[in-house]
């Protein structure tokens, strides 16, 4: 047993890095419909739709990560609107985005998009803000902290 300890520690260190962030989960239309449902969000929540190719999305994600650090109750859920790939984790890890992570899976992309927000026509970034009391606001494009805080019903710091 004693001889195994260094091995166990090495495995733990490897596992530790893998466990640091939520895995990226493929999303289908049923899960997407739940995500977009304001009644399911009991506290301030951001659902950020993004893609690897979208430079503007990174600016929003950086803001949301900053807001999350200052408001630990704020949930930030990300949905990559492109096919699931393990490589999608890197930009989220770099920005230190904590929270559930989704990406398009096997379901048809149009159906997933429609289920998250029937009004959304594909432009990125697209963000849904939930105030946790049934309020839901959708915004396309870069958002500023004042607008985001207002939509979330939280005080801007």
């Amino acid at each position, binding site marked *: *047993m*004693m001889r195994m*300890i260094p091995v*166990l*520690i090495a*495995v*733990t*260190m*490897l*596992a*530790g890095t*893998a*466990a640091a962030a939520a*895995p*990226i*989960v*493929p999303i289908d239309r049923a899960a997407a419909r739940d995500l977009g449902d304001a009644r399911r969000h009991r506290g301030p929540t951001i659902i950020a739709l993004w893609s*690897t*190719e*979208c*430079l*503007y*999305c990174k600016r929003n994600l950086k803001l949301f990560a900053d807001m999350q650090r200052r408001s630990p109750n704020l949930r930030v859920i990300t949905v990559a609107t*492109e*096919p*699931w790939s*393990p490589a999608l984790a890197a930009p989220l890890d770099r920005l230190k985005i904590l929270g559930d992570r989704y990406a398009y*899976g*096997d379901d*048809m*992309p*149009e*159906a997933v*998009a*429609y289920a998250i927000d029937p009004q959304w*026509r*594909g*432009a*990125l*970034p*697209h963000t849904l803000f939930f105030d946790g009391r049934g309020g839901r606001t959708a915004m*396309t*494009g*870069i958002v500023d902290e004042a607008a985001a805080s207002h939509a979330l019903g939280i005080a801007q710091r």
Partner: protein
Amino acid sequence: MGPHRRFQRLARACLGIAAGLLAAASQAQAADKVAMPKAELGSSALFARDGSLIAVAKQGEHVMLYRSRDEGRHWEPPVVVNVTPEPISADGENRPKVAETSEGALLVSWTRPLAKPYAGEIRLARGIDGGARFDSPITVHRDRQEITHRFESMLTGPANRVYLAWIDKRDLESAKTAGKRYRGAAVYLAMSEDGGQRFQPEIKLADHSCECCRIAGALDADGAPLFLWRHVFEPNERDHMLAKVSRGGTPVSAHRATFDRWKVDGCPHHGPSLAVAPTGVVHAVWFNQAHGAGRVFYGRLREGGVDGQRTVGGERAEHADLALADQRIAIVWKEFDGERTRLHAEVSRDGGATFESRALAVTERASDQPRALRRGGELFAFWRTEREGMRVFPLQ
């Protein structure tokens, strides 16, 4: 190390392993749900002068060329365009393209993504023996910085000329180095006079294009190239710019072509399409947000305005394409109905004065953007879907 400490460390190690296994299991479960590689659907097609249907698409790190001699019912074994594998962009807005030179050679272009984010090169391969095999691809531009050269659009004209226009961020990069602000990207053009073997140094068509929408191209009635792209007009209006280039490849004019004034700091990822009548009337379809709703529009573009602008399809119509043969015009688009995606067309026989609607197909799985194709006086819709494959629909 005392026994108590050893126990603590061992307990921590076991906990760590358990957490690691859990994370690995959920990763594996996530991966398991998408174990089959997704078909990469971004495709382009044309009818060659011999009447055969040609399509190009990405397969891993190869562009493949497919040929059908019976309008898509049967396909010959595909030809590998780039024998040496390389990364290839193949989403709907930025998929490989195919064209035929005035001397009958097939050309295939694509964007090769580079290691740095958003960086890419415009590649072109020239078919030999009627497209049975291809020369090694060349990089079209002289600028070899590892920056954005992407979203290429290819046109062929008389006298073996080839024109490639693409989205290029060299001016943005220079501005950043100089600490200056720069809106969007730029559109550059390179021309070849020998059917795509060699290209002249590229020139800039305009500053301040949008960053990730396909560029539309068509020959004007006088044979000179026209390009239409989504632009970023001050301060952030993502309308369209129409640029004319001389047959010799020099910029002639560029003017604002749509006036919907969609203000957004974001990526619509939804480019226009263009076709020119023999009379010189410029027909276009495009996507914009107007009065708070994103819609597909059709209109006839002229300097300073749009004639006959109207919406096409319903609230979720998207990625429309346009083709024209004399007085006949076809608009094709796809539209999600809440459950399935439908392929629609509108066909005009009177130069765009009136249109008839057609419902062409439906799919329950993923699909590429539809393309409108011409073969002489005939018009077709081409649509590649995950479940049904590559199909064409005659638009009589």
